[in-house]
């Protein structure tokens, strides 16, 4: 968590300069070139020289200097805190927001942390993206305070959208931003749909691994481990990819004081989202039934038979 290294200073790195010469690279090739750099064993001077020779690259950052940035994108969502008392609203289709505390979706914290670690290792830029109300700026600021470089809020009333319309909007934005890798939570703890990451990957035609609990990235390829019933599954693939993040992947850092103070100066763009109308709608919400009052069945050995009977016939758990 807090022992994670601080962000590396942004400067012209020779490995990125070389990659930048290779035209419009996708992430996998960019990473390949990072790997190639060790084999090339040229001096820093000559990398710099090559960088200066390139003049037309889209990633150009200043006169004569180019820099390929790895575009790392994270989808995040503002959700009710898991310890909030949830009441169904008057229409029976939405929750009553009164008195509910909102937080960054807990699984998205793993996604942001993994994005920051990826940036610290390979360089690049981390953008966090959300679709939601203006209130979601608070959660975006939290991500900026953790270390993300830029935040984008696509403003929309999300009360009547579905995973399909959200995913289409996010995929279009990811394309526009030139994202090379996308991290998101395995699910948002409000709707528990677990659809967005997978849908976006499908729309983009990218690889996707869901429920990632361990990840190694190198040379434009990845090895992701996911938890499956009773074991683990290891998956190899190539970037670009969408990785949906599960607990265990990392320990999200606490925003530190410097990060928090820096966050207010980082860009947070806000624009209206263009969302397709939803194909699905929520027909109704039902709260879980009130728990029956606990009963004491008896004491000591005398209660055992009765307990077994209740577990078998009432609770039907044994």
């Amino acid at each position, binding site marked *: 968590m807090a022992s994670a290294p601080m962000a590396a200073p942004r400067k012209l790195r020779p490995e990125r300069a070389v990659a930048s010469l290779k035209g419009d690279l996708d992430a996998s090739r960019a990473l390949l070139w990072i790997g190639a750099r060790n084999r090339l064993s040229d001096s820093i001077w000559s990398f710099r020289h090559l960088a200066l020779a390139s003049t037309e690259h889209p990633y150009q950052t200043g006169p004569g200097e180019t820099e390929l940035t790895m575009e790392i994108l994270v989808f995040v969502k503002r959700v009710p805190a898991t*310890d909030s008392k949830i009441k169904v609203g008057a229409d029976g289709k939405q929750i009553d927001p009164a008195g509910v505390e909102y937080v960054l979706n807990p699984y998205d914290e793993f996604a942001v942390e993994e994005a920051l670690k990826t940036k610290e290792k390979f360089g690049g830029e981390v953008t966090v993206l959300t679709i939601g109300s203006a209130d979601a700026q608070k959660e975006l600021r939290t991500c900026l305070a953790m270390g993300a470089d830029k935040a984008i809020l696509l403003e929309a009333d999300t009360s009547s959208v579905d995973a399909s319309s959200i995913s289409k909007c996010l995929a279009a934005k990811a394309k526009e931003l030139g994202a090379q890798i996308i991290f998101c939570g395995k699910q948002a703890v409000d709707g528990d749909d677990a659809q967005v990451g997978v849908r976006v990957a499908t729309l983009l035609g990218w690889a996707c691994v869901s429920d990632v609990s361990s990840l190694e990235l190198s040379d434009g390829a990845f090895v992701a481990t996911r938890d499956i019933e009773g074991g683990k599954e290891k998956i190899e693939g190539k970037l670009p990819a969408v990785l949906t993040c599960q607990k265990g992947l990392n320990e999200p850092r606490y925003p530190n004081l410097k990060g928090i103070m820096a966050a207010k100066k980082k860009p947070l763009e806000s624009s209206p989202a263009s969302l397709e109308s939803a194909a699905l709608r929520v027909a109704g919400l039902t709260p879980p039934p009130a728990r029956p009052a606990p009963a004491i069945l008896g004491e000591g050995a005398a209660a055992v038979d009765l307990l077994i009977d209740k577990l078998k016939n009432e609770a039907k758990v044994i």
Partner: protein
Amino acid sequence: MARYKGVDFYAMDSLLSDEEIMVRDSVRDFVSDRFLPLVTEHYRRGTFPMELVPELGELGLLGPTIPEYGSGLSSVGYGLVLQELERGDSGLRSFVSVQGALCMWPIATYGSKEQKERWLPGMARGELIGCFGLTEPDFGSNPGGMTTRAVPDGDSFVLNGTKRWITNGSVADIAVVWGKLDDEVRGFLVEKGTPGFTTRDIENKFSLRVSTTSELIFEDCRIPKSALLGDVSGLKGPLSCLTQARYGIAWGGVGAAQAIYEEALEYAKTRVQFSRPIAGYQLVQDKLVWMLNEITKGQLLVLRLGRLKDEGKMHFAQVSLAKRNNIWMALECSRRARDILGASGITDEYQVGRHMTNLESVSTYEGTHDIHTLILGGHVTGLQAFE
């Protein structure tokens, strides 16, 4: 368990900036997730969780308001940091107060460029630890009587004397030691391992057990002349540091009181005696309301003090009032809470006993409750009760 939310009866949050709230919440989560799971073991053993020191540095909690080395945090933001740390334990808050206010602050304020460059970056990261040696076995409330002396000898000073009750004394890499040079109080930076400088820990404390407390012993300890804090002389040196630290302690008292109140409230709502939860009885309600009342007043006091500090208008007598009130208030809360918890309140399964005994130290150090009464008394009457 539900996330700890603190006490905010008067919607104080709306008087805080977004950054201040974010800083507070970050430290709050750190204390809940990283510190509190460890505290009971350390309390039993009488040790400080040294493994968390790099994390304190990484979070930016060490000297955050020090120009150039800090993060430009407001004084209220810094106060909220200390409030949350003391919600965990007074020992944790003491560590951070000593490092930031009592060691980094005087080096930044009175030190040379070389001294700043040598010590401050490592101290901000938590790689170097500081301690502050003012109190002596025979001079507590009356530091002006100190007998520690530095005598010039060629290009060094020779230091002799004993400091007692020094937080972090034996774990510190650098001691800010106050001693007399030509009968005037001066500050010296003494490095760990300097020949003639030894430490001895004070064991078997009832209070502030999650903190190292030591004696510093100087026997013909030779330090270079460059170890002198050049820009200050007289008691003003140490007292100005204490003003910084007392400011934070006043916030800390609010944190400890909130932890105690929350625990007592929860307990009272679930503990059934006779026919109903004890929270339903008037005498118990009186205690809970007393706590809420005093916590709310204490919060408003430090918030105003913090804004004054940022405006450069804070007077040391105002700091005395806040330290005196808020630690008294927290200690009184702890006694009431302990009472509400009945027998449960005397085991370390609950935190109130730990906070209560801690607060006895906090009430004594950095100027005892009564010494602050006399500082204020002198301020309002113009008649000093002590020299």
